[in-house]
């Protein structure tokens, strides 16, 4: 399994990753438009579910700014025969249940900032342990959408912060 590590991109990039999960670049209008682009509730489900290809958690320390952040990236891949998926969708599961909202991913990866703080030694920050523990309340499933509008089954559930 090859981790698909992304380069360190602090503020602007993390905004982009948030946008990746929400399916929008910033405002509500775009979100509405992309939500509408999600496969319909009644889409035909066929074929195998995508599988988790890699999941990594990376600490980045900016010594100049005196800050650190922890980012989780989970990437999925289709099973053989399903390589021509047109796009990817994600749904969120929480400790309270599954959100009915389905959102569009920019690609086959989920990227999420799960902790950040001030200082250069994140391992010494009690806030990091608490934030990583809290992150695992959040889990995701993804699915692929084909050109004909049919969808794959949802993938297995992957908790934020999982590594594998």
């Amino acid at each position, binding site marked *: 399994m090859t981790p698909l590590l992304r380069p360190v991109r602090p*503020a602007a990039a993390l905004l982009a990753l948030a946008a990746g999960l929400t399916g929008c670049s910033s405002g509500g209008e775009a979100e509405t438009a992309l939500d509408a682009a999600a496969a319909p509730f009644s889409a035909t489900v066929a074929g195998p579910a995508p599988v988790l290809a890699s999941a990594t958690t990376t600490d980045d320390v900016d010594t100049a700014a005196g800050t650190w952040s922890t980012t989780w990236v989970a990437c999925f891949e289709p099973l053989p025969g399903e390589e021509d998926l047109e796009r990817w969708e994600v749904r969120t599961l929480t400790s309270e249940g599954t959100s009915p909202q389905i959102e569009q991913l920019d690609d086959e990866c989920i990227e999420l900032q799960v902790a950040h703080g001030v200082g250069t030694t994140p391992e010494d920050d009690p806030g990091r342990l*608490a934030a990583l523990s809290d992150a695992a309340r*959040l889990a995701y499933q993804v699915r692929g959408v084909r050109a004909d509008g049919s969808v794959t089954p949802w993938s297995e559930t992957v908790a934020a912060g999982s590594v594998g």
Partner: protein
Amino acid sequence: MRRALLTGSAATAVVVGTLTPALAESDGRRCSPTRGNVPVCSTDGSAATATFLDPTATVSGARHIGLGARTYVGPFAELFATRHAPITIGPGSNAQDNVTVDARGGEGIEVGDEVILAHGSSVLGTASVGIESRPLPQAVVDAGVDTKGDSVFLSFGAQVDGATVEVNSGVSALARVAPGVTLPSGFLVLPGKNVTTDAEAGDPALGKVRYLNQGDVDFNEGVLHVNESLAREYTELYREDPEAVHGANVDPGGSDVNPDRDLPSFAGQEQAEPDFRNRVIGDVDLADTYARFAERTGERIAIRADEGEPFVIGSVDEMGDDVVFHALEHTDLHVGDDVRYGAGAIVHGGGRVVVEGQPDEQTVVGDDVTLGDESVVFRSTIGNDATIGERSAVVGTELPAGTVVPPDTIVLNGQVFGSVEW
């Protein structure tokens, strides 16, 4: 999934302290949960925007309570208001099982839009949650956190006591914000911490709070969507069969992940017991017969499988009052035999973080385990004969058989994080 028939007879919602006749009291923005406005508020409103109060919720001073649209009030939640101490709760918020919002000791409580009051949390006195705001701290801005909407999360057993909690903040499990303190936007109180000064509330270096991150925002957004859908689904269930939202009965189903309505089963026998004093909702498989379970359990217990997969609960040794069971969808919750549940204990399912080469463990509580009063088990495996002390929390942890967690201890991801300070 088993599909259940709607069945049963039932009592009415508990509304005390008002002689208001059964009138639909709604100004279009806020609805007062008077006798005629429970469990759906307003009674004749659209299910898409209705607020639902579980019939076991206690409402005191209903005319002085205003609930926004799409609000879910869970089993055994308590709302206490008076003419001099009103309560308002904004649209899209939720007050989950055994939550207490008690304004009687102060001048009123304001809860804003999209505020999550999780199981067993409380807001007391003169308090404000999710109303006031200020610019996010620079560290949160620099991290690029997109707050999307403005939300607040109070976790299991958290308490806001005469304090102000601003939007885009939160209070972790068994933590507290003390009287007179303001928790600013962009900060979360760490588990078990007692924040007693504004300085502690706004400076992570003092060890009581951390910065808000993107995961927090996304979590809140998901929880809000789920609970808004619960308000709608329970409203539809009630309108289809008013007796089905009482006692041991079906879950509302209605979502793509949980489309069917399931009955709980006692000793292998599916049954609705709408007159039962406690709430047992959905696909819950209890080893005890109904009679034995009723005998061994206390009051105000909520076992709510309205989103999750089956809960499997072994023979109960003893279960105190105010116990809550709930779980993440797609996760199992297995509890062994002869477990002793202290009053206010919370057992919450959810998958643990997966590490390559290790199994995806679900939440499991072994046999002969003792859960202390107000203890929390979340996303953890608790070995046989273990003891979790009063007001301790075990989160994301595999606890070996026989382990004793002392009272007032927070265990996160297998590490002792600290103590409960209040």
